[in-house]
């Protein structure tokens, strides 16, 4: 797979625009978030949504899975959830006279892990390791997860009593962290006026399938990145670590900067964003568009503070 000619990038963008239009009819008024969610998927990353219940996280996951023609499952994390409930379990089958594996909900292309911070760390890490390695080992046997494989996890920031917040190192496994937030007035009006969103998901057309998505992922990974853009990404990383000496450098960034892996993920996300936007190359605008979502949960002090820091970083680093 080498550099793709521009002519092949545009059809992806057209299909992506169609997909986003369909999604926007279900999740109203969240165009940027939808676009980032799709980008995250094309960049082979996982998505973390930190938000209160009832803003449409499940709806988003279901709609995304349906419109892309992928199967999906939802796991409600609770304090008594065990790893086997996520991964699956081998049960003795009397008729067959042996153990038979019952695949857990994780063997779906799109998995919605609801309120992940309610489950004990053991169960959390079972899910997170599966996300990282894209395979699970059960009873000494390694089983591949479907490809594409995409996890949308949600975390409730308000009710932290009796919850196990994800440690920062685990947060790193999510490519993006987003907040859905309340809909604005007109969008909320439309929501209230329209019928049940869940019912409308079933009517969504499937505009892609698993092989198509894998193909897009490959195209995104092959998108051209110029040296000038690498300079810019490096400048951003350096500034996040407090290295940059330019005016307005956020000193707070020195506490916990972006890792080289975060830099790679930033580039992957920017590539996918450019592909969705129909460009055969990655521009600083693409990096800036995904920077908040990719960087905020990796920077110091939780998503909210991280988002502010990411924003100030972007404004402080000039294009080289």
């Amino acid at each position, binding site marked *: 797979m080498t*550099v793709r*000619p521009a002519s092949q990038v545009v059809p992806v963008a057209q299909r992506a625009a169609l997909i986003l239009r369909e999604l926007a009819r279900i999740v109203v008024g969240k165009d940027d978030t939808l676009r980032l969610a799709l980008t995250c998927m094309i960049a082979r990353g996982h998505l973390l949504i930190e938000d209160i219940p009832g803003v449409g996280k499940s709806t988003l996951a279901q709609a995304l899975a349906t419109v892309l023609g992928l199967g999906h499952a939802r796991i409600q994390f609770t304090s008594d959830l065990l790893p086997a409930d996520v991964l699956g379990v081998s049960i003795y089958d009397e008729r067959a006279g042996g153990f038979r594996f019952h695949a857990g909900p994780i063997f779906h292309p799109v998995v919605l892990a609801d309120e992940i911070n309610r489950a004990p760390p053991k169960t959390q890490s079972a899910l997170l390791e599966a996300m990282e390695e894209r395979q699970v080992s059960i009873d000494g046997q390694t089983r591949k997860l479907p490809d594409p494989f995409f996890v949308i996890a949600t975390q409730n920031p308000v009710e932290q009593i009796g919850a196990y917040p994800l440690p920062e190192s685990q947060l790193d496994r999510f490519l993006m962290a987003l907040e859905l937030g309340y809909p604005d007035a007109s969008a909320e009006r439309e929501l209230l006026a329209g019928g049940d969103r869940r019912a409308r998901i079933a009517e969504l057309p499937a505009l892609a399938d698993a092989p198509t998505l894998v193909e897009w992922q490959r195209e995104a990974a092959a998108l*051209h990145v*110029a040296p*000038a*853009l690498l300079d810019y990404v490096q400048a951003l990383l350096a500034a996040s670590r407090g290295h940059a000496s330019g005016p307005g450098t956020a000193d707070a960034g020195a506490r916990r900067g972006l890792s080289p892996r975060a830099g790679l993920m930033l580039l992957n996300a920017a590539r996918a964003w450019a592909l969705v936007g129909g460009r*055969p*190359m*990655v*521009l*600083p*605008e693409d990096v*800036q568009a995904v920077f908040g979502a990719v960087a905020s949960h990796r920077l110091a002090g939780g998503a909210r503070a991280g988002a502010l820091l990411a924003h100030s970083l*972007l*404004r*402080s*680093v*000039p*294009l080289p």
Partner: protein
Amino acid sequence: MRPAARRGRRRARTSSPPLSATQIRWLGALLVCAQLPQAPHLPLWVAAFGLLLVGLRLALLRRDRARPDAPPARIPSWTLVLFAIAAALAVRASYGYLLGRDPSVAFLYILVGIKFLETRTVRDGSLLVALASFLLVTPFFTSQSPLSALAVLPALLVLGATLDVLARPPGHASERRPPQALARAGALVLQGIPIAALLFVLFPRIGAPLWGVPGETGAQTGLSDTMAPGTISELSLSDAVAFRVDFDAPPPPPVQRYWRGPVLSRFDGQAWSLMPRPGTGNLTPWSAGGVSYEVTLEPHGKPWLFALDLPASLPRPAGDDAPASADAGFAFLARDQQLIARTPVTQVIRYAQRSMLRDAYPQADAEEAREYLRLPLRGNPRTTEFARELRARHAGDRELVGAILAWFRAEAFVYTLTPPLLDRDPVDAFLFDTRRGFCEHYASAFVVMMRAAGIPARVVTGYQGGEVNPRGGYLIVRQSDAHAWAEVIVDGAWQRVDPTGAVAPSRIEIGLSQAVAAGEPVPLFARLDAGWIKNVQLAFDALNHEWRRNVVGFNRDRQRELWRDLSIDRYAGWQIAALAGALALAWAGVTLALAGFAQARRERAQALWGEACLRLERAGLPRMPHEGPIAYAARASRRWPQFAIAFSAIAESYAALHYGPPPARPGEHEALVATLARAVDVLPGAAQLRATAA
């Protein structure tokens, strides 16, 4: 000591970054490529051992990668030192000595493998590349043929690629595919060729090598200064080329091609040897019917030069115009008409030579005749008896010579490469018992008989015949053409007599392969019926000859010759050196200018973009430092919607130039720059923009 502390100390000692697995593999490939051309010249155990060491390092690397958690395999340095000492002792045992060219090369060959075993940092790697390039030179000690040059080419490419891979950060190196690195190295080599060719032709050559490489005695084949039964027949088994000759006119017929070499006058009953005599001989006067030619002589470690019987000039190094005088020049003519160089021939030399095709020349002084009558007091009684008998029957010297030749023809003598062994009284045994012999037997027996009969005689060795290569039209004289004949004083003149011609006329008229019986071990290329193999070999020899003349033999004289052809010879050496330097600089300049041109194109895009930004800034809409081109154009379009198309064209083309992939088609880049320039042109000035906004 705890592992962490040890690692810390190691890092403190070597600040150079460690080699990646890919870099180590590249180094291994380079070493193998550098070792292979030298391997055939080495004893088998050295060749195999050196390669084994490189293989061992790669095997260790494999083990390390298979077990990433285990500490990397390390062979302690003191072990390697012991190893090196053991290798030196083994080489000494194998060669019998250590301080010489060949054992040193063998030691270096093993040493690079040992060094590779302890190579861990990039700095070690660079040192190894230097060692490998030195090893690459060593095959040329033994052979400077085009094939040897070809054999080091792959290593040169791998060397370039290895330097390329070493110069890059390890992560990058592993991403790099071997063909790409090789292609880059190939491109660099191709770019270097014009400079190398220019310097090759124009950089003034020094007359003698700066330093001498001690030659290995006994390694070269050729005629020696003694001749015992078996000397020349042994030589006849060799396919090696003795020399090649370019004639100014068509070559003379084979019968006249007697290439005179060492003249042997002293006989001890078994072997013939040189009898050095002071003074120089007289050249045969040059006249019509003479031949002039140019000899390219392979090194043979002895001072003899070869010329057709009889030399009419002193050899003149090719390209040298000055007439050679008897006492100057690089060779002289001995009293026995033998051309002798002042130093042994240890490298390929070319000289122009003229000869008169005569088989007799006047005896210089009567005194010398007695020297050529000496025979050992004892030995070969039957021959002496037989010669005296013949003498009594034939009064005239000429008749006697004729009678002996007739006797050779009449009796059942066999010309063969595999004569029986003769120990006591070899001439007697040969003439009356075995009657099977090679040219040295006939020449030796003939001269002994002549001396016994009172006629001064001596043995002349050299080459006879040679093969004309239809490709190139030059003559190839091989060791298998080595020959011995006789010279006798008849009627006051030295007269050539070839007894072999009496026994086996076809040896003289056609060549060795026709003269001996089928099934004798005649070397392949001395046979005339070898078919296509022979053709291929002749074509290859033609190439080899050109190579010898124009590349290896490109010495100071050849260079002068070429300069004369290019008519730049009227300048002094330093002027030509300056010219070569200037041309090389010019070439480097062109290369840099091309790179600079590409740079300038990039800078033009940057300049146009800067101009557009400046104009918008003056119009009151400065670009924010972090703002990308598309975002800025969008903001500008909101302020001045009527120029939205121009803004978008500027931003799109600049973004494609600055952040886009390298142009897929030629001209794409220029088209983008043109679009950018036009769009900037369309944009009105700052003042006008301000006015429109207001």
